């Protein structure tokens, strides 16, 4: 664990960020039933334009019932490792350091892009900025699970 080299750390973190960007935004458009699955069961903070949202299920609910079709385009994104040894609490308590791997990190992701709501293509797209914290999925269920989950999220229209 302590031997993870910089290239491995960079690879793991940037791939996790890329995976989030490539799967989360398309889900907001086409696969809203899957939105909740991107979140930690008890996220720290979820904010949309300053509105607090309780959890992934609530986000999914909002997108399914209130949001018109949304077309997101991420134009730039980047990430950094926050904690190389992120303390994960599993069903059996805190994950012992002996079981930790290079993937036990928390990651800060920042995306910048534009979004157009609704079918009217004449509407100018709005610029947004979004920050996420990703943490390892604590679930021990190895099947069909995401490696990383959203611990916190802050979406803001900025243009």
């Amino acid at each position, binding site marked *: 664990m302590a031997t993870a080299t910089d290239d491995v750390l960079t690879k793991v973190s940037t791939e996790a960020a890329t995976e989030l960007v490539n799967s989360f935004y398309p889900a907001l458009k086409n696969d809203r039933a899957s939105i909740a699955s991107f979140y930690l069961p008890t996220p720290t903070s979820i904010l949309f334009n300053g509105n607090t949202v309780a959890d992934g299920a609530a986000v999914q609910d909002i997108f399914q019932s209130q949001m018109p079709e949304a077309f997101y385009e991420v134009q730039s*994104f980047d990430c950094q490792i926050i904690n190389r040894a992120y303390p994960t609490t599993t069903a059996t308590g805190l994950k012992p350091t002996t079981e930790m791997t290079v993937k036990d990190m928390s990651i800060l992701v920042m995306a910048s892009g534009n979004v157009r709501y609704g079918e009217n293509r004449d509407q100018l797209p709005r610029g947004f900025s979004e920050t996420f914290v990703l943490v390892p999925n604590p679930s021990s269920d190895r099947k069909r699970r995401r490696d990383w989950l959203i611990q916190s999220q802050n979406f803001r229209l*900025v243009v």
Partner: protein
Amino acid sequence: MKTMKSRRSGGDRGGIRKRGPIRTDRDGDMDMDAPGGRGGKRGGRGGPGRPTGSGSGSGAGVGRPARSGGDRPQARDKTLEAIQKAISNTRDSQVSIRQGKNAAPSNLELFSVLGWKESKVSSHRDGGVENLIAFLERRMNAHSKSGPRARITKSRVEGDSLVVFVRPDLSDRMLRLHDSLFAGVHLVVEPYDPSSSAVLDRELGTATGTSPSTADTKSKMTLILSKRYYPDTKLLDLSKLSADPDLVAMGIFNQTSTESKFFPALMKVWEMGFTNAAQRREAVESVSLAHNSLTNVTAVTTLSQTFPDIKNLDLSHNNLKDYRSINAWRWKFRNLEFLDLTENPFSAEPNFKETMMKWYPKLQTLNNVIVRTAEEIAAQKKTPIPVQAPHFQDDGQIAENFIRAFFTRYDNSRDELVKSVYDSQSEFTLNVNTSAPKAQQTESAGWDPYIKKSRNLLKINHLPARMSRAYTGADKILELWKSLPQTRHPDMSAHPEEYLVECHPVPGLPDPTGQSPTGVGGLMIMVHGKFEESVGGKVETRSFDRTFIIGPGGGMGGIRVINDILCLRAYGGHEAWSPENQAIPYATAPVAPVAGAAPVAVPAPAAAVPAPVAQPGIPQGYGAPAPGKTDAQVQQELLVAQMSAKSGMTLQFSEMALSGNGWNLDAAWKNFEELKASGSLPATAFLSPA
């Protein structure tokens, strides 16, 4: 050509006197942009470069006296300085608009190439421009077999003209291409004159045999414009142009070539009447082009460049047949509210109304019939998730103190800033969003100083580059920051509206002491704002998004920066984060701190509302949108939360106070104070004993 030359160097410089030196001195101006070092090299280059182009010399001699006296360096610098000052003053007051766009990169010579629009290749997708450039380069090289290949450094299309930029030593070769045969037409190649009125002037000169000076054309046009401009109503009436006695007297409509150039020239003359773009934008809200026998808008298309923001446009009594006739304005006039196309065949087309409404999303009145209400337009603009005041949860004002000091220090003393709160584990990266939406339809400066450091993971795919563009540790961060341009961020206290700052706690951060296996808690701070930077002597405004994670550490204030991630993008304004319902006085009501929770948040007005959920007695989700909850309900809940925070009353009593006062917070507050003073509020009205 000949008339041009003589005018440029000779005595006939009436109205273009000001322009003449500007143009020729532009090169000089560029010289001066380069500080010290390059000045020396220049003298050497100016020597061999200029004189050899003896024939090319159009303007080479004018406006260069400063350099000719290659005397003592210090004296020369002073002269240069004085001249530069004079130039920049003239520029600012006279032609800043044009100069902004036309400034040539360093000392290139500009030429206009005309005639190609009638060529066989003009039907190509790019109008044949690519073919034309390839042709010109080929022919320039045909003349010489040795030396470096002649190239067109840069080019752009301006009306019927392709403006090309070439090195001064290629001027001769460029001019020799005049009258060469390209795809069936004879090209006209001449030194570039940036004013369209000069182009028109030339045409008029050839048409009438006399040669009225550009100044004369310009002053006549200025007069015509002033007769047709109504400042009270901000209307520019360009209707019935062909019947205008002044224009007829000028001979504008005697031949098609002047007719086609007349309108762009008129627009230029209008633009030259203004010293700044904002004034120009505000001067005109309405334009009429009625009764002009227009069959399409090609001849008048520059209207959309000069007046991109007009609200009312009258195109009635023309001969516009269908949408194709105005297709050139498909994406223009984004603020158009009123459009009159009556007495045009297009109005009778079945899809007329539908098409115009689709093209112009703010259109309210079409052919004098209301097609959309202001409310409908407002509803379009509304975002599905209402824009609320910032969420700012920061016990002990740690984030507030950090962020208040940060940008001033980033602007003024990056080294001290790094030393005070960054340590050996801090990480900094930046990424540039080069295609972000903009607040204005203006061109923004390039990203040269940043782009090689940008870690946009969409574009930076290779692991070594991803690694080298991440900066870990105070030393590396400072080294990078020192290489980035100087910046100026707005004062957060004086201009709080220009920032949006949000903050919330974040767990599981690395513990620098290594003692806590569960990590330590810290704060995540997200900032959106703008800054200014000097690009080539011009102040450029850019927008940024920046997220920090700060945790306990050995830096100033007992903190350290763990992560600092910066996104740069074109200026996008700050309207996007001003709360949607302006009726709610977020910004005005001072919020009394509520025990244990609401901190006095950072940028005073904008952030002054503590997060509803952070208040005591307020259930999760209160004031937040939820399925089945209307926007009005959400807004009311937010008001109630605000009233509760301010008064210390329960939600139920806060709601009573508001609904009894027409949901006006100020009135409700006044009412509350009266009732409290008279002792008529029961103890149960309050969350905790008042």
